């Protein structure tokens, strides 16, 4: 459509919506109401656009069409992030029912028993799935859960007088936020490099890194590569031996539902991203929920509030002395919890397990197909080991053969086939020209075959028609912006006023 920016739209005097005004009697009682503001009364109107409602609606409807969400394309491209189908029934319940949308989080407990019950019951479900003793839904994202876990570790050690424990160990193929969110608290972060053959951290190196200073470990498993670390319980045991706590980054638990849990692997803390594994849509990046689980011993440190049940009534417990305190407004992102609740109640134990089984089956199938059919792809690290819900692949050979067309080129062109760009890898890259698709439980064989076919076509185009690919995409709603990476301050425009200064001189 080539939609203009709203800041350039509009006509003086037009209104998008009218606002309920005070009644005449109210006005006659209080006057204009704003004179009392004195010198902090606004002097000049904000330069917002003046656009009629039909046009505002049309503008945003059109912009909404300029997206490739899981609702209109295959959400296979974003490995580690699990772009599932978000059942419409959940979306409608969550966004249209006044018994959720119109509820104030501070209204009396007896007036919101339904909400508290869902909160409580979902905790019971997540406890069973993760094997933990308590679960909090307050963290708003995976990173927030990791940060909160780190705070719990810190609080625990403080309570136990372990002031010397100031190191955290993670692995390179764990999510970068494991390093960042622990570092922010002042921990020294030790990152274990993967073994070049297995892709996994070495148990020996890990043990060598452990010491009395180790406060905790933060590990993803399966790691981003899709490889499951089969010595995981030895890692946690070794950590426990030096008095460290073990936190499991299960942001993406899609391969493990009903299959393997944090408890058996020896973890003390964990989190699930409800907006990945448990079907809540990503919303372009939130609101999400990092469900944080812990063992009984750590429960006193959980963020507040928690929801408790005395057998007849649900109540919100704000009175938690050892708690790390409020970490998120009110009850967190509760609608995300409702979606997870509905999803788990729909599937039940058997269905949840099938979600894991099919995720892994789909991924192993797709990995085989890609390696067979798409030219220029390699699989690094133990090719004989079955991957879990995703596979870190590499367009290294394509890059070599074409003298420079790798995953970036493939991504640019893939958009023309109605598929969102492939996620590559977290930084730093351990595999050249990486890409990490995740076909998860929502896609069928035909979807996967179509996806592989598109990859194959694009890879062949890179080989046969590199000039054409270099100019891609052709069918995107826009051309590529000149400053994708905003490579210097002078070309970063996060607002229209900056844009005007930078580019409309």
């Amino acid at each position: 459509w080539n939609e203009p920016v709203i800041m350039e739209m509009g006509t003086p005097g037009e209104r998008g919506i009218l606002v309920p005004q005070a009644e005449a009697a109210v006005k006659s009682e209080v006057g204009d109401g704003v004179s009392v503001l004195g010198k902090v009364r606004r002097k000049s109107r904000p330069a917002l656009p003046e656009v009629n409602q039909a046009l505002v609606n049309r503008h945003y409807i059109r912009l909404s069409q300029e997206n490739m969400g899981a609702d209109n394309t295959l959400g296979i491209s974003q490995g580690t992030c699990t772009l599932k189908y978000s059942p419409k029934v959940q979306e409608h319940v969550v966004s249209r029912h006044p018994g959720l949308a119109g509820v104030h989080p501070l209204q009396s407990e007896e007036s919101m028993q339904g909400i508290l019950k869902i909160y409580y019951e979902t905790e019971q479900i997540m406890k069973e799935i993760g094997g933990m003793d308590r679960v909090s839904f307050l963290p708003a994202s995976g990173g927030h859960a990791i940060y909160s876990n780190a705070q719990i570790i810190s609080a625990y050690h403080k309570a136990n007088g372990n002031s010397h424990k100031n190191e955290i160990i993670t692995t390179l193929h764990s999510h970068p936020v494991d390093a960042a969110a622990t570092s922010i608290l002042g921990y020294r972060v030790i990152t274990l490099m993967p073994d070049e053959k297995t892709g996994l951290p070495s148990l020996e190196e890990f043990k060598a890194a452990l010491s009395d200073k180790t406060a905790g470990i933060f590990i993803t498993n399966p790691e981003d590569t899709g490889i499951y670390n089969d010595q995981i319980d030895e890692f946690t045991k070794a950590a426990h031996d030096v008095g460290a706590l073990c936190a499991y980054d299960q942001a993406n638990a899609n391969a493990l539902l009903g299959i393997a849990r944090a408890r058996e692997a020896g973890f003390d803390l964990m989190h699930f991203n409800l907006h990945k594994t448990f079907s809540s849509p990503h919303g372009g990046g939130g609101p999400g929920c990092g469900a944080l689980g812990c063992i009984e011993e750590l429960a006193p440190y959980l963020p507040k509030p928690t929801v408790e049940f005395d057998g007849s009534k649900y109540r919100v417990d704000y009175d938690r002395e050892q708690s790390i305190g409020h970490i998120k407004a009110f009850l967190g992102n509760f609608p995300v919890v409702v979606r997870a609740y509905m999803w788990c109640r729909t599937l039940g134990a058997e269905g949840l397990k099938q979600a894991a089984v099919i995720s892994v089956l789909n991924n192993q199938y797709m990995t085989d197909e890609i390696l067979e059919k798409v030219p220029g792809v390699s699989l690094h690290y133990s090719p004989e080991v079955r991957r879990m819900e995703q596979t870190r692949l590499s367009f290294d050979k394509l890059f070599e053969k074409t003298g420079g067309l790798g995953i970036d080129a493939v991504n640019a062109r893939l958009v023309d086939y109605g598929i969102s760009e492939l996620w590559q890898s977290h930084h730093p890259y351990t595999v050249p020209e990486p890409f990490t698709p995740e076909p998860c439980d929502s896609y069928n064989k035909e979807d996967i075959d179509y996806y592989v076919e598109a990859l194959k076509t694009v890879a062949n185009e890179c080989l046969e028609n590199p000039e054409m690919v270099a100019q891609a995409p052709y069918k995107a709603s826009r051309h590529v912006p000149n400053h994708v990476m905003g490579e210097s301050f002078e070309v970063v425009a996060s607002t229209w006023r900056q844009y005007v200064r930078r580019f409309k001189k």
Partner: protein
Amino acid sequence: MTDNRVVYPYIPNTAPETKAALMKKVNVTDEMELFNSIPEHLLQKEMNLPEAMLDEYTVRRHTEELLAGNANLSTHKYFLGAGCAPHYVPAVVDEIIGRGELSTAYAGLMADQGKSQIQFEYQSMMAELLDMDCIAMPQYDGGASAGHAIRIACRITGRRKVLMPKSMNPQNKEIVNNYLGGIDQQYAQIEYIGYDSDTGLLDLDELKQKLDDQTAAVFIENPTFLGIVETQAEEIGQLAKTAGAEFIVYADPISLGVVEAPGSYGATIACGDIHSLGLHMLAGCGVAGYVMVKDKKEYLYELKDQMVAASPTSVEGEIGFSWVAAFERTSYAVREEASEFTGTNAALWTMAAGVYLALMGPQGMEDVGESIMQKSQYAARKLAELPGVEIKLSGPFFKEFVVDFSGTGRSVSEINKSLMNQKIFGGYDLSSTFPELGQSALYCVTEIHTQKDIDELVETIKAAI
């Protein structure tokens, strides 16, 4: 109940023929072979969950019955705020953020230009509303935005002391504390400044006394948690500037059609919650934080989150969008070297706020501000006419105000119970967190309240005291 023969509508490859074909292709005969890299002893033995409600109708009815039991805006009247308030959400906002292409979008660059444009437009309109220049992806909520703003101020000034109002939202106080947490010491050292017990304005004397060359930032709320519009804002900003400190303003954006923009009275960092800009209460989920700075390099690079930015494309006059601008700032790029971590935030809510601002325009924002001020002043006057009821602070207020029931001999808790019997939620009980205010409650009146609603509130309280 185990029934392997169920084909799940959300898990298409549970269709037996397909599943068999895939299993054959990957060379397994039993589905557990897929997991042969997991040692036997780590496998989960059983999963005890409530019985499945396989069909959509059953789970929907079950959930809706639970939700229907909750008092809500269509069953009750709310005069309860304290960080979450009953504002009107235009239908177009619901329409747009309910569009599947948006709510299920994620991280496309060229694939998701529409989403990025909507975010850029939100950012641009916020800049006009706040009179600030730069903004990145949102924070989880206002509390987190305050924490982030403070960390930015500390990094920029190289100082640690931060002066904040004692009357601040107590929940946000804790969130900030958490945000500033550290294993050895807090990232910043917070000192609280009291408020004038008559006016509710910041105690300038105390501020001047504590403000020094170790101060990283002076932080104010405007309006304050207790509803008072900080009329001394410009002066406070000047004091901060003189001390070489950042001036952080936490503003409720819906006030900014009538209250001056923070950027216009000296704020170097603005933060707050966009809850009032078209988000539903959603049991407290309808919140998201913003942090904005002026168009200066040293500020922009301190924003921790991914940033949507616009730049021209190869086609004359065309604008394109990217959400990885200045990516090297972020923890995605440099892990523990980043100043803070980033990740999933509250992106969808910025789209709601963007549509809201586009609908409202300058006149709408002015109208809503005026409407809220008039209605809340009316409510305050009418309540003050009740015997034993007093409006506690004399400064001008926006949307919320402190009502002291001490003179009635009834506690806030008792009055709120009486109100609830009439399907009204009274104000937020301040008696435990602000004991100096006696049996006071923080009442919230917005554009959605009619004169009749307010009169009914007053009559009901009258009957209860």
